[in-house]
């Protein structure tokens, strides 16, 4: 069943308007793939494709990271009656680039009695975990690095790997604050991974597939958050909360809790190693937001209201990539809003929230969703 859907959607029919053809990236990627195959052996084709994708993702990664840091600073500044960065470039847009250069040139302070190998390894693990997750995200039709048939599972699994880096960083720094931060982070991710998974499973039940492209296609006639009645909405809220926790962002930023542990697990890091942690935090935020956008808000699918043909046409005209980015940034904005409004939770309350509230709600929610799907009550 699955390959049929994919095949059906990748072949553009003539009745589709031109922009829909243009907005479909699969002919382009297929053409690149074909011409590479003509030029060299399959092995070298794969290598070249990997390189191209790697470089593109790296660029995208850096750009998104820089932009998100800037966006966060501006958003929090406006919420706090401030202007935020406003010196470097117009409206301070080059502020993060200046910060990047500052971090690049900063001294990497060696730590006495630290476990040197693990200390240096930790930032890479954190950044690789987020780097791997980005590969599976569909940015637009036909525009993703790899369309795994277990995409959802893959993203959950890979993004949870980051905690190993956090634990290593805390343990190897030879700093007591770092260790407490790392331990907190471990407990936190282990718990909240559960909620993230269950919230996504609610939608997987509805979509009938774990493949992200299929999930997006299934939302052509309505986003899952609208299609799935209340359970989908609850799942969305739960996902929002638990993914905020999973990315170690406020109000769940216990691992780095500034007022308690100074900087938590990355207290001892400086320069580019610190920048890796910093960047990974924002990219993780981007990844969980794009998962939320893909699974709940229809990914790159435009917003449609049934029977409003004119409105739907206008919506179709907006490129899918813009839709995707817009939805992602909406979720990111929500997460920033949380962070800059709420006080931080305590570690036991954090676990209480997960095990006493989110998990039971989630389990009931999954059941309800399964029932709804079974009875065919969804739209």
């Amino acid at each position, binding site marked *: 069943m699955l390959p049929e859907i994919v095949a059906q959607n990748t072949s553009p029919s003539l009745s589709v308007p031109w922009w829909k053809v243009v907005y479909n990236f699969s002919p382009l990627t297929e053409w690149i793939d074909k011409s590479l195959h003509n030029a060299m052996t399959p092995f070298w084709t794969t290598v070249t494709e990997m390189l191209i994708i790697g470089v593109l993702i790296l660029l995208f990664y850096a750009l998104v990271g820089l932009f998100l840091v800037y966006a966060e600073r501006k958003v929090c500044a*406006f*919420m*706090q*009656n401030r202007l935020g960065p*406003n010196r470097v470039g117009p409206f301070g847009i080059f502020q993060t680039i200046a910060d990047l250069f500052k971090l690049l040139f900063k001294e990497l302070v060696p730590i006495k009695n630290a476990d040197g190998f693990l200390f240096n390894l930790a930032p890479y693990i954190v950044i690789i975990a987020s780097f791997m997750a980005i590969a599976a995200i569909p940015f637009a039709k036909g525009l993703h690095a790899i369309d795994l048939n277990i995409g959802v599972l893959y993203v959950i699994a890979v993004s949870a790997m980051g905690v190993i880096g956090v634990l290593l960083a805390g343990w190897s720094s030879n700093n007591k604050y770092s260790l407490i931060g790392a331990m907190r982070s471990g407990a936190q991710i282990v718990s909240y991974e559960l909620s993230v998974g269950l919230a996504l499973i609610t939608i997987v039940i509805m979509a009938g597939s774990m493949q992200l492209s299929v999930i997006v296609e299934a939302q052509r006639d309505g986003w899952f958050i609208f299609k799935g009645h209340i359970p989908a909405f609850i799942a969305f809220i739960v996902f929002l909360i638990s993914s905020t926790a999973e990315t170690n962002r406020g109000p769940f930023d216990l691992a780095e809790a500034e007022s308690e542990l100074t900087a938590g697990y990355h207290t001892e890091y400086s320069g580019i190693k610190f920048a890796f942690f910093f960047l990974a935090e924002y990219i993780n935020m981007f990844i969980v937001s794009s998962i939320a956008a893909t699974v709940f808000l229809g990914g790159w699918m435009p917003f449609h209201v049934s029977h409003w043909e004119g409105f739907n046409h206008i919506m179709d005209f907006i490129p899918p990539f813009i839709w995707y980015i817009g939805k992602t940034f909406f979720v990111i904005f929500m997460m920033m*809003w*949380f962070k800059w*409004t*709420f006080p931080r939770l305590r570690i036991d309350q954090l676990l209480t929230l997960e095990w006493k509230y989110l998990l039971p709600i989630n389990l009931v929610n999954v059941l309800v969703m399964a029932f709804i799907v079974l009875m065919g009550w969804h739209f």
Partner: protein
Amino acid sequence: MRSIINYLKEIILGVWSLLKGMKVTGSYFFRPGTIITQKYPSNRKDLVMFDRFKGEVVMPHNEKNEHKCTGCGICELNCPNGTIEIISKTIITEDGKKKRAIDKHIYRLGMCTFCALCVKTCPSNALAFSQKFEHAVFNRALLIKTLNKPGSQLMKGVE
């Protein structure tokens, strides 16, 4: 049953209280008019300090380069932390009398706590506060200032 209702009530009230908080921050986010940041170095021109602002101690001179300081040393006595040092000299007035007068009124800005005791206790109102507030210099020695201008004299009629 009751416990389930309480459980749900707890959740709904909790979420409601969180939404109230988000309303506050959100309302400020969408009202950029409430921003209070001042772009300091670029707004220097229209940055006016209050007229009583205690920037630094100065000795006002008139256009004839005259001040009112008689060199009595009361400010030096009153200063809690030895900011002011007065070096006096003896001059001979027109009618041939020997008289104590100020040679140097040394003011160490780096030590001053701006308590205004010197200004308040000066019997001839020779000292005042200026509104200047940018005192940063690259050399600590520059913070030691001589308040009376070179060649200045005591104003006529001030004893």
